[in-house]
């Protein structure tokens, strides 16, 4: 993997070159306190390139004696906006020229002068609770009013605060305050052994459990140079696709809740329940916890279980297609989803949007195909792409992908090779770093790790698909009526837990 070391003062210029006017995109950006290693803070930028090698990493260094600031990358790409606010919160490094430096992950209860991801911040430091005002953005003007919603919502959903600026029924601006359930996992795992920290990685997000377990395990394996068996690779594909299946089926049902189509909701929930039961049969956990582990797989898929999966796939496939037909031929339904909540292709590119949302706005990217991991290079599948960028497009991408997942599952079950389940992770040279990735049901999910002494975690950074995509919701919503927000939001179906790690 190409890694270029630069001085932090040159970051903006180097990022502009790597970004290449939007031919490449920013995958992630994060800082690391490496003062104990070489006296520097480091800011890493991972870019994905239009051709091989797929990734390029910029490592910008800032000596501890220098002013703690760097030129913001936001003028190069708006995708950098959240990352830099987070770096500012957690490390106190200031991006000069950033247009909006409100706190992101640490809310107004947190004092400005504590930066918890710095190595000299002890986790047991008592931090006073301060209460400042958090300024929400809104539009001024005659007749314009604000609608605040959340953080506790009406449904069984995660917390977030939304502030709509309304001109009548139309939303003209949306600002979101998120990170209410920020748990500080990246700090909590520091110093834990790789295998203990794994349980927190696996629990970042329930809906994306397998994807997080995969990205974490692959990061560890790539740093350690551990080669896992082919059987484990196939088992991982099976679990990852079961995860996509229960998410996509459940999300399509939930989308129907966004417009009150009860038959769609019930059928989606019923099919999802059947899939959750299958998950529990396969892994012992309804969210697929416990099979994917660093070094391979902790559980096998026996012939019996494989038969049960195949049987269930047959039943689900017919059932699911019938439910989809109910949506496709329902004009009242189509009327609500077509042309609602459009995310223009260019906006998706500017924000480096990933996954379902990208593929619904005409961008063909999928890490399973573009940078194959586990056994995806041996799988034959299509990556559906729609161009209208609306709620409907995101729905149909999910629908098509569900069918593709079933196809992948059948191939993986049929071709399951023999082999050991799990290999040992050898001792890793301290301060080696690397990353792993997977395509979660929501899109690319990247985990970066630096290992410390005795196979412990020195620094862990997680960029889930939802982190990349949340800012896009604020672009897609304005121009729509406020009752369509739940629908638009559900069509992106982003996790809060995934960003609140």
């Amino acid at each position, binding site marked *: 993997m190409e890694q270029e070391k630069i001085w932090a003062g040159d970051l903006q210029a180097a990022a502009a070159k790597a970004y290449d006017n939007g031919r490449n995109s920013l995958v992630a950006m994060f800082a690391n306190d490496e003062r104990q290693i070489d006296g520097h803070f480091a800011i890493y930028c991972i870019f994905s390139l239009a051709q091989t090698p797929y990734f390029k990493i910029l490592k910008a260094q800032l000596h501890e004696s220098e002013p703690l600031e760097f030129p913001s990358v936001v003028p190069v790409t708006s995708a950098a906006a959240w990352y830099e606010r987070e770096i500012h919160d957690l490390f106190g490094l200031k991006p000069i020229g950033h247009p909006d430096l409100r706190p992101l992950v640490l809310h107004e209860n947190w004092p400005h002068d504590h930066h918890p991801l710095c190595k000299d911040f002890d986790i047991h430091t008592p931090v006073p609770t301060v209460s400042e005002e958090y300024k929400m953005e809104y539009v001024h003007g005659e007749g314009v009013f604000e609608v605040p919603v959340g953080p506790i919502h009406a449904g069984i959903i995660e917390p977030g605060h939304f502030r709509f600026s309304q001109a009548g029924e139309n939303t003209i601006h949306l600002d979101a305050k998120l990170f209410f359930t920020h748990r500080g996992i990246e700090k909590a795992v520091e110093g834990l052994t790789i295998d203990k920290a794994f349980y927190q990685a696996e629990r970042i997000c*329930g809906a994306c459990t397998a994807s997080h377990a995969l990205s974490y395990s692959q990061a560890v394996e790539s740093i350690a140079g551990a080669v896992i068996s082919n059987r484990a690779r196939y088992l991982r594909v099976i679990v990852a696709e079961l995860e996509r299946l229960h998410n996509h089926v459940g999300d399509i049902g939930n989308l129907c809740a966004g417009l009150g189509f009860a038959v769609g909701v019930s059928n989606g929930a019923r099919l999802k329940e059947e899939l959750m039961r299958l998950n529990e049969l396969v892994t012992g956990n309804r969210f697929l916890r416990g099979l994917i582990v660093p070094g391979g797989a902790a559980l096998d898929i026996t012939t019996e279980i494989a038969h049960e999966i195949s049987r269930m796939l047959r039943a689900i496939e017919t059932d699911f297609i019938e439910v989809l037909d109910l949506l496709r031929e329902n004009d009242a339904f189509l009327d609500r989803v077509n042309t609602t909540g459009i995310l223009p292709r260019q906006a998706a590119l500017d924000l480096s949007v990933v996954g379902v949302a990208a593929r619904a706005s005409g961008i063909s990217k999928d890490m399973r195909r573009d940078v194959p991991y586990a056994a995806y290079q041996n799988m034959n599948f299509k990556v559906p792409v729609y161009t209208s960028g609306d709620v409907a497009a995101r729905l149909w991408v999910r629908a098509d992908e569900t069918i593709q997942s079933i196809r992948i599952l059948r191939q993986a079950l049929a071709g399951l090779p023999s082999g050991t389940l799990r290999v040992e992770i050898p001792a890793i040279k301290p301060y080696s770093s690397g990353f792993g990735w997977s395509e979660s049901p929501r899109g690319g999910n990247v985990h970066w790790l630096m290992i410390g002494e005795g196979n412990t975690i020195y620094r862990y950074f997680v960029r889930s698909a939802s982190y990349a995509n949340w800012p896009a919701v604020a672009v897609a919503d304005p121009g729509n009526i406020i009752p369509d927000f739940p629908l638009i939001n559900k069509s992106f179906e982003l996790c809060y837990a995934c960003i609140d790690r």
Partner: protein
Amino acid sequence: MSLLSKIINTGVVTEKLDATSAPHRFRGAMRAGKQDCGACMACSETCPTGAIVIQNGRVQVNDKDCIFCGRCIERCEAQLIKNTGQYKLATLSGSLTETAGNELRKKIRRVLNRSMHIRHVDAGSCNACDFEMAALNNPIYDLQQYGIDFVPSPRHADLLMVTGVVTRNLTQALQMTYEATPTPKLVMAVGACAAGGRTFGDSYAIRGSVDKLVPVDIYVPGCPPRPQALLYGLLLALDRL
């Protein structure tokens, strides 16, 4: 037309609490044999949530903290720790215990027995506990068959189901929701995060288990608790098992 035929062909799928059992691979609660184990500490050292204490050579697993990962089974050389497949692990506390006095307990049950309304609060979960709560609304568990339902506002709620290790950023919202709920009210801590608070270890962003902030009446262990485990907890609280 196809809408109707889909509804009719699907038929009734609703089940009662014990209609299906957990599959073989579901681990459930861990239990250690009664004999003296020699206290090698392998299990307590390996447990990612600190759920195991060894006292006088006896292994004790704290269900509230346990995430059913099975590491302790693997590490125990004496093979004393076994998984039981048990998921009905809810326990009562606060105003539902004997010590709180029969009057109060009876009153709560009299008021809530036939119709109880629940508000959900995610105070820092991974969302799996919350998805399992949502699953109670699916046509298979159909929570409404027990006269229990989720409501959009704490003002209409009798019970708060709280998930997650309480985060700093959600503390205020949790307290305000609790205050907004009319009395008599119950609080259920759902899952290892809410009940034990140790799932994500120590962090600057976490305040810990729910009972550190508001009084808890029902604890439901699990990571996440299966929908049937939640249902069991609800019916246990109402003395309707």
